[in-house]
Structures are given as C-alpha cells and as structure tokens.
C-alpha cells in the first residue's frame, strides 16, 4: 500500500505556512498535531466548540496536498450500507427482468438443473460486481488513485456499533465486502475525525488517534484569520471587531460566537462600509453572531460597556486577552 504520508513536510513552520497559503491560519499547536499525525501516519481526532475550523482544517489539508476531500457526516443510525457500500438493488432487479430473454437463450440446450447452474457459473457473479455497487464515502476513500483526505465529521453522533466498525477501517485501511473480498486502500488516506463531545468516544478509537483540541483562538490569531478570510477589512475595524468578540466570549452565553461567526460578522460590516464599530451598527447586526434570543438580549443590555472595553482593548492589543 502506498501512502500519502510519504509526502513529507520539512518542518512544522513549513506546514503552517503552506496552510496559511490556502487561507487556513493554524496555531502552532494545530500545526504540531497535524505534522505529527502526518509523520506518525495516524488519524487525528479533532475536538473543540462548533465553528472553530475543525472541518476547515481537513479541507485545507486536502487543498495543500491536491487530493480530493471525502467527507462522511455521521449521525445516529448511520450504518455500514450508508458508510461503505450498498448494492444497487433496483438496478439488479431491473437487469434480471431485462435480461430474462438472454438468460433463456443462454440456457438453451442445457439439460437438467445441474447443467443450467453450471452454465450460469461460467458467467461469474455478474450481478454482484462493481457495476452494481453503490460506493459510499469510506469505499470511495479507499479507492482513490492518488489518495485523499477523509473527513469523518461529528463521529460522536454515530452509534457505538458503527464506531467499532470504523476501527477496522482506520487501523488497516481495508474492509471486507463478502461478495467481492477484501478491499485495500490504494493509497492510505489522511484521516481527520471531528467530535463535538456529545458522548465519550471509546478507548479503542482514542488509542488509534492523535488528539487535538482546538479552542477559541486568541485575539492575535483571530486577527490574522480575519486578515486572510476577509480581505479589504480595515486594520482598525479588524482590531475593534476582534476585541469585541473576545469580550463577548467572556460573557455567560448559551452559545458563544465562534470564528465562523466572527468572519460572517466581518463580512457583514464590510458590506455596510463600516470603518468603526458604532453602537447602532452593532445593535443591528448582533444577530449575525449570536444565535439565541436570550443571548442577544443580554448582549444588548451590556452593549455600551462591551463596546467601550473593545475600543480600549483594540488600542492596547497586548491586554486584549487578559
């Protein structure tokens, strides 16, 4: 089995730079984990609050390596047939009906049951070949000629049974299809698993993976992310905006605004041609990054104080994440 992992990165900083080139600004912690995962040939289990860029990381890696990203979204009740392969049942049925006459011709001259079956056997298991196979994400990932980045998204939502099945795939990169035999990966894919921690993953799965926790970024990192993701945003607005979001994260909220929300908000403000954060504008756009009525209400209440703090922090960027 060839491996994509042979595609070495020379250093952690080099990896971070290349990720930055595809607009993913990685902290050193993230770059270290990815670098190690790459060199140790291990899947990486990425945890962290929603919207901090867990999925983006996998996308970024796929872009760097110039291989397809295959994404498998997990949910309750996901099973092998949805994740690996399924027989195209309808197609099989249709073909047998269409080919009824042909089958009749083929059987001509065969005397007795045994002879007929013998003849059928000469034609292999036509109906259980790859033509009738519906490949699902895992199967596709194993079949990529040039390898791929496999993203198993929200693995914590899947059932324990499926998790056990995943173990086999992740450790050997091969699966057995009863009708076709064992299918081995042509090129070992690079695997990211993401989890939002709705349930504890099994020890066996954790043991096979490296663990990476992505927290909300610090102000400095978040500013760099914004610079990259929202070009055209003025430096002052960038600083004020990040300081404001960081201040909001200190509040006791139902759902804290994440990086993706910061980006959305920055884009919104850019569209509104804002140069500075003003009270009215913030009030009008709170719903871009706060998703609960309660949160919006409590933020509106403290808005002047938050703004003042954000402006102060923006002027002295060092103190912005005290």
């Amino acid at each position, binding site marked *: 089995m060839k491996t994509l992992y042979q595609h070495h990165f020379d250093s*952690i900083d080099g990896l971070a730079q290349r990720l930055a080139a595809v607009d993913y600004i990685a902290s*050193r*912690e993230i770059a*270290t*984990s990815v*670098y*190690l*995962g790459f*060199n*140790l040939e*291990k899947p990486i*289990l990425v*945890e962290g609050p929603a919207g901090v860029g867990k999925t983006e990381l996998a996308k970024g890696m796929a872009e760097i390596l110039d291989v397809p990203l295959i994404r498998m979204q997990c949910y309750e009740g996901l099973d092998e047939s949805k994740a690996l392969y399924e027989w195209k*049942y309808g197609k099989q*049925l249709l073909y047998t009906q269409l080919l009824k006459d042909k089958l009749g011709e083929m059987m001509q001259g065969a005397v007795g049951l045994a002879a007929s079956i013998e003849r059928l056997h000469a034609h292999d298991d036509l109906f259980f070949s790859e033509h009738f196979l519906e490949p699902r994400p895992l199967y596709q990932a194993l079949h990529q000629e040039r390898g791929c980045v496999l993203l198993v998204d929200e693995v914590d939502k899947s059932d324990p*049974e499926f998790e056990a099945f995943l173990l086999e795939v992740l450790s050997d990169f091969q699966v057995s299809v009863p009708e076709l035999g064992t299918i081995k990966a042509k090129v070992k894919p690079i695997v990211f698993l993401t989890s939002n*921690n709705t349930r*504890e993953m099994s*020890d066996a799965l*954790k*043991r*096979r*993976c*490296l*663990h*990476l*926790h992505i927290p909300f970024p610090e102000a400095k990192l978040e500013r760099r992310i914004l610079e990259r993701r929202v070009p055209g945003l003025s430096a002052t607005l960038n600083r004020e905006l990040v300081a404001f979001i960081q201040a909001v994260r200190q509040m006791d909220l139902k759902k804290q605004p994440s990086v993706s929300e910061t980006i959305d908000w920055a884009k919104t403000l850019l569209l509104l041609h804002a140069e500075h954060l003003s009270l009215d504008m913030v009030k009008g756009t709170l719903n871009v990054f706060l998703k609960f009525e309660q949160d919006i209400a409590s933020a509106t209440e403290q808005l002047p104080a938050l703004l003042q703090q954000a402006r102060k922090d923006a002027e002295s960027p060092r103190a912005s994440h005290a």
Partner: protein
Amino acid sequence: MQATLEDFFKALRGSDLKISLNAQIDAARAVELVGWSDRTLLKSALGTTLAKTTADRALYDEAFDRFFRFSSFENMAAQDPPDQDQDKQTATGSGGPGGCQGSGGQALSQLLMSGDSAALAKRMQEAAREVGLTDIWFFTQKGFYTQKIQQAMGLELLDREISDAKRQTLAPERAKALELARKKLFVEVRNFVERKLALFGTAPTRQLHDDFLQSQKLSNIEKRDFARMHVIVSKIAKRLAERHSRRKKKRVRGQLDFRKTLRKNAAYDGVMFETFWRSKVVDRPRVVAICDVSGSVRQYARFLLLFLHSLGEQVSDLRSFAFTNHLVEVSDTFESLPVEQAVDKVMQAVGGSGTDYGQTLLDIEAQLLDDIDRRTTVLILGDARNNRGQAHAEVMQLLYQRARRVIWLNPEPVSFWGLGDSEMKRYAPYCHIARECNSLAHLESTLDALLRTHSASA
C-alpha cells in the same frame, strides 16, 4: 533520554492519566521528530500523542509543568540551570552504579562551595534515579528517600570533610560554610522529594483509598469521603450500565417473522428479497425501591439510592420510597434535582425516629400494591428492627405473590437476624433474595445480579 521519557510516563500515571503502550510509542516517535530543544513544542507534541480527551489534556498540562520544573538550588547561586543539558546528562550519567559519584569527578563539597546550581541539580537527578525515587508512594517515605539521595550524592565524603575542617583549627570558616551548605542541601533535596511524591504518589494512594472505601461498611464512611464515594458510585454504575446495555443490544433481534416476510415479498413473485425479523421486547427492570431512612440505616439507603439513580436508563421506571414510620414517595425529588443533591434532600426531608415496619407495610398495601405486577422488582432496604411493633408479615406475603421478585437488603450480618427486635426472620421467607448488604462491593454485586437476571430472561 529514554529514561526521562519513561519517568514522565510514570508521573502521568501518577496523576490519574491512563496511557496505553501504543501512545507511549507514539510519544517517543514524536519526540524523535521534534527534539527536546523547544519546550512548548515538546509540550504540544507529547500532549497530542498522550492525552486523548480534553479533560486528559488539562491533567497532562499540569503534570508536564510539574515534571519538567527544574530542580532549583536557586538559593545556592544565581545561575539558572539549563534544562536540556540536565536531561542529557541524566541519561548518560545513570549508566553505571558509580555514575553518580563522579559527574565531572567533582566532590559534593566543591559543587556546593562553587554554587554551581546546574551541576548540583544534575547530581540530584542522577541520585534520585539511582535510588528509584519514582517508586515513592507514601509521605512516610520522604525521610528515607531524602537520606538515600543525599548519600548517593556523596554526603559521606562531605561529612568527613566537615569534621576534618573542624579538627583543623585553621579553617573554622570553611567548616561553618560547609555546614551551612549541607543544611541547604538537605532542604533542597527534601523539597525535591516532596514534589516527586506529589507527582508519583497521588494516584496509587488514591487507588488504595478507593479500594478501602469500597470494602468499608457504608455506615462507617465519614462525611468527608462522601464526595469521593459519589465519584466511585457513578463510576461503578457507569460500568454496570455499559456491561448490560451491550448484552441487551445483541438480543434485540429475534426469530424470522415468516408471515411478514411472505406478505412483503409477494411483490417480487414470492422471491424473498427482503427478510423481516421479529423484534424482542427489551425487558428493562421496573424497580420499586423502598428504603428505611431511620438513623441506623440511612447511610445505606443513601448509597443505594445514589447507585440506583446513577444507573440511568438501564432501569426504566424506577420508583423510590423512603420511610421511617410511614411511606413517602421520593421519586419526584430525583427527577427534579441532580442525584447527589436529591439524596441529601430526601435524607433531610424524610427523617424522624421510631421505625415502624408494620405501619409501612400497611401503607405499601394501601398505596402501592396495585401498581406491582409480574414485571416489578421490589427492593427493600432495612434492618427490620421494628421496635417491637406489629410485624404485618402478611403484606410481605402479598408482595411476594404479586411481584416478580422481592429482594431484601439488610445491613446487619445474617447472624444478627431475628435477635432482639429484629423481624427479619419473619420477613425473610417472603423474599426471593434476602442478603446482607453493607458495603459498596455488596451493593454492586446485588445490582449486577438484578440487571443480569433481567436480561437473561428477556
């Protein structure tokens, strides 16, 4: 290098982190890749391979900072000990048994007088490894290890020098200075040992304490240990729940549902493409727990309730009652509050003295008997000490006839049953199981049996 890493793994285990062999290998390979030179890099590299959850990561961070904190000797000199050198030296220096005597061949006194903190720290590390400091468990071992390490560092030689200097009238200052340095050395080594004890000894001693708590009589457990007990109970409950949920899943699929299969496949000319299976009804135990909460047994009741409610969905339909002289349903309290708080509240609310089993049984007959059917398990916890009142054992007989099972848990040993005002001998014949139950270990085996018989008969 390898030795340092191994010591670190040991320290991680000491802080309650489970590290698999696999992770250790990964960690070693990661270190090879990133090297020892960058501390933050080393921290994140080891962290990503060794810590497997976010909670573990916090533990790991703490352990890392404590482990790679450099042994001080700051008061000896102003110099900061360069860290990586220290690691390198420890690895090479610990080669032979004599390795510690001569790191650089210098005598301890020379090191002390020159105030070379780095060399001293190094010497101490080597000595610590030689005497096996990583095996330290108890605070009582502190003196022993401190002494051992000092000796390994060359204390004897130092003492001889001090006494020599004292004899020579010419060098009283040198003797004084050496003695002072010796005292400082003692303090440093002692501090070092204390830090290591905290690092390596915490988890094993806690484990010992946990084992002790599990076999201890529940009534003897002191209030300060309650928090720990809650942790243990929920751990065991989780384990039980996991074990029994898995077994159940396997049993859900039953026999082929032939009729349904035929009916559904009529569309395919009776060719059976799709099969249908009968599903089995998952039989989760319905439990009615009736607990005596009078002074003598309330501790036991506390933990039984805690345990039952920690089992979560493994026990569907759990109703709990408490009594001293009459029956009170307390299920609501458990539904509205977190388990630990609920237990406390129940204990406070349903109090009073003078247990009356007779009255309670009559209450059961009046309030509860209609709800008990062939699927219900009745769990009674009490010492059956009735203060010489009426026993009303006939209600027990009714219970016995109606319920699937009646289990009586008695904190008293069997030999005490029936002595004095105990009515246990009268109640016991109407119980499917009557057993002594006074420690967590007992509770665990009882509840395990309760869950097992249910899934086996499903």
